[in-house]
């Protein structure tokens, strides 16, 4: 029996990590379907952002209570997983708490720490479930989250609670050891179960705990929870310029330059393929990584002036739609080798013109995002396609464009009157 369980464990472990690695590579591939963007300058400043924004969760602390609860989850998640090392070694070798003998007091200290964290994580998860389902915070009940996204958030919290409970139960049922939190349940267990049953409880909790962790790991790539991984690269590649800066379009800059100074135009200049983004693959890889990094917290939408006055635009939905679209494209490519058109595009089918038109480019969404996602960047790229590729602009904007072109001002005033104020 012993050997069989070790083989089964080893196989499950290899399979779990294998599937996870494969999925992560698929996501990497999906992100790289985006257009190139050079974001490697000033590494010092970029590492600083990783430490402050991702590791230090600086922006989370704008809401201190939530930030502390979130920090507990995050620290708990990372630190308790150190215990995973022992669980895997035990599982493969068929040993029992292999590190306990050699580490002595330090072992007890570590497990005690894990147990305290496990309890705190459970409490934080319960509070978060209450916020989502009982208190019903505005940003958690909005229609952006209808269906899968709302369930996703709840599943994550419930799985975390289950994993933490199994970890504590496993320790409680093991009466060879005694740890700070779990020992409190041991008397109840010994009173109700005999030696053999206790061993079964411990073994079952152990197996369910590790299988739960593997399941959760493989659930990550399909979930908003992926942000625990992608927050780090996302902070690294965050823009370093003032947030009011829209990125330049060198193709158009050159077209204008060559129109004005034809002598500069190269003889064989290739015309650019398209302007802006109609499809997710026409966005930059950073836009796509933003989409996969989004934890759907809704701080952006909460701060959006258009959304809070009842317009259709929701920056969070922009991110979610982008992720949905690139996932669809990626799956399409996985099945067909190349992308086979499905009659849909990001612009129009996933994000509508009305949403795009409502944006005031106020940067509130960019400011609020704890992990440097820019919904605004995607909105602008889609607007560019809309106006330059499809000539799709409201009549008032077309008038504004022609006023700028003819009168050098967005209104229809004579350029000769530009300094009239000095005479009045």
């Amino acid at each position, binding site marked *: 029996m012993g050997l069989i369980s070790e083989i089964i464990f080893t196989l499950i472990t290899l399979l779990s990590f294998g599937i996870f690695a494969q999925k992560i590579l698929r996501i990497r591939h999906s992100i790289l379907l985006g257009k190139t963007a050079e974001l490697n300058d000033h590494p010092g400043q970029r590492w600083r952002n990783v430490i402050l924004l991702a590791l230090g969760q600086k922006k989370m602390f704008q809401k201190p209570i939530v930030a502390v609860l979130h920090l507990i989850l995050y620290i708990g998640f990372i630190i308790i997983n150190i215990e995973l090392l022992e669980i895997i070694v035990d599982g493969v070798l068929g040993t029992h708490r292999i590190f306990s003998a050699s580490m002595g007091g330090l072992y007890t200290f570590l497990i005690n720490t894990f147990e305290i964290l496990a309890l705190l994580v459970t409490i934080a998860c319960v509070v978060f479930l209450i916020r989502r389902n009982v208190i019903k915070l505005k940003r958690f009940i909005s229609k952006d989250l209808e269906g899968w996204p709302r369930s996703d958030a709840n599943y994550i919290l419930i799985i975390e609670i289950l994993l933490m409970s199994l970890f504590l139960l496993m320790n409680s049922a093991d009466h060879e050891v005694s740890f700070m939190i779990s020992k409190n349940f041991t008397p109840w267990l010994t009173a109700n179960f005999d030696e053999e049953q206790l061993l079964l409880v411990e073994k079952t909790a152990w197996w369910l705990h590790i299988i739960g962790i593997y399941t959760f790991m493989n659930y990550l790539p399909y979930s908003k929870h992926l942000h625990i991984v992608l927050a780090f690269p996302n902070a690294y590649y965050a823009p370093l*310029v*003032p947030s*009011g*800066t*829209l990125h*330049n*379009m060198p193709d*158009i*800059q050159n*077209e*204008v330059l060559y129109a*004005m100074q034809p002598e500069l135009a190269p003889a064989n200049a290739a015309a650019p393929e398209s*302007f*802006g983004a109609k499809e997710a693959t026409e966005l930059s890889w950073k836009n796509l990584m933003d989409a996969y990094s989004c934890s759907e917290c809704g701080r952006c939408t909460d*701060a959006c*002036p*258009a959304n*809070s*006055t*009842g*317009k259709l*635009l929701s920056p969070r939905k922009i991110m979610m739609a982008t992720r949905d679209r690139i996932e669809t494209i990626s799956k399409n490519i996985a099945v067909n080798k190349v992308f086979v058109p499905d009659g849909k595009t990001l612009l129009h089918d996933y994000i509508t013109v*009305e949403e795009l*038109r*409502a*944006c*005031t*480019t*106020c*940067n*509130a969404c*960019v400011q609020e995002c704890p992990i440097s996602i820019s919904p605004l960047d995607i909105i*602008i790229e889609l*607007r*560019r396609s809309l*106006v*330059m590729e499809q000539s799709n*602009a*409201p009549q*008032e*904007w077309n*008038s*504004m*464009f022609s006023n*700028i*072109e003819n009168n*050098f*001002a*967005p*209104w229809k*005033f004579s*350029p*000769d*009157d*530009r*300094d009239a*104020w*000095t*005479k*009045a």
Partner: protein
Amino acid sequence: MKVLTMAEMMASGEQPEILFWVGCAGSFDQRAQKITKAFATILNKAGVKYAILGKEEACTGDPARRAGNEFMFQMMAYQNIQILNGYNIKKIVTTCPHCFNTLKNEYPVLGGNYDVIHHTQFLQELIEQGKIKFTDSNEWKGKTITYHDSCYLGRANEIYEAPRKVLESLDMELKEMKRCKSKGLCCGAGGAQMFKEEEKGEKRINTERAEEARARATDFVASACPFCNTMLSDGLKVAENQNDPAVLDIAEIVAQAIK
């Protein structure tokens, strides 16, 4: 009002210490013209050697770019940079945060490198350097005011303190709205919204902001952007509340208190 253009200055062989970029709103919009004049008055009184481009100034391209019309933006940028570089301009001050953002952040990559400051920053400097002196009994003293952060000054460029410092130097009592500084609520004009009807919704953005401003029950509302000024004034007007505060630009407030 005597304001020299760059062309006039060059003709007399002089170079200004700073170029005043007036912007389209400041040039043509009747309400914004008052802000322009107020700022020019301050520059005159402070003895700043400045010039405007006059008829040679053109839209920076900001609304076109944000609406998605990059061609139009690049055309305007090309034209403006040719003129600015032609006059060898080094330093620019502007009363419009949109022009400020475009000139400061978006022109450099196109070959237009200038030291660009917003008028609230310039006013703060002039006050600190003692070049602007207020009358002892200036009418603002002790009056309450709330300051509306322009998105393109605040979040986009992190200028939160300069306008507030100017108001404090006038001994005004600043009462912040709940959403201020990095959390400031947009007036609704940015991203070329100024030039079109709002999308359908439950409420206008400027109405929402005007309500927040009104709730502070201050004597005045300060803005530092001609578009915010229009949006807030309109938002307050809609309610037609006789007791609503007037919306004034920082430059207008300073101009009235100056010796």
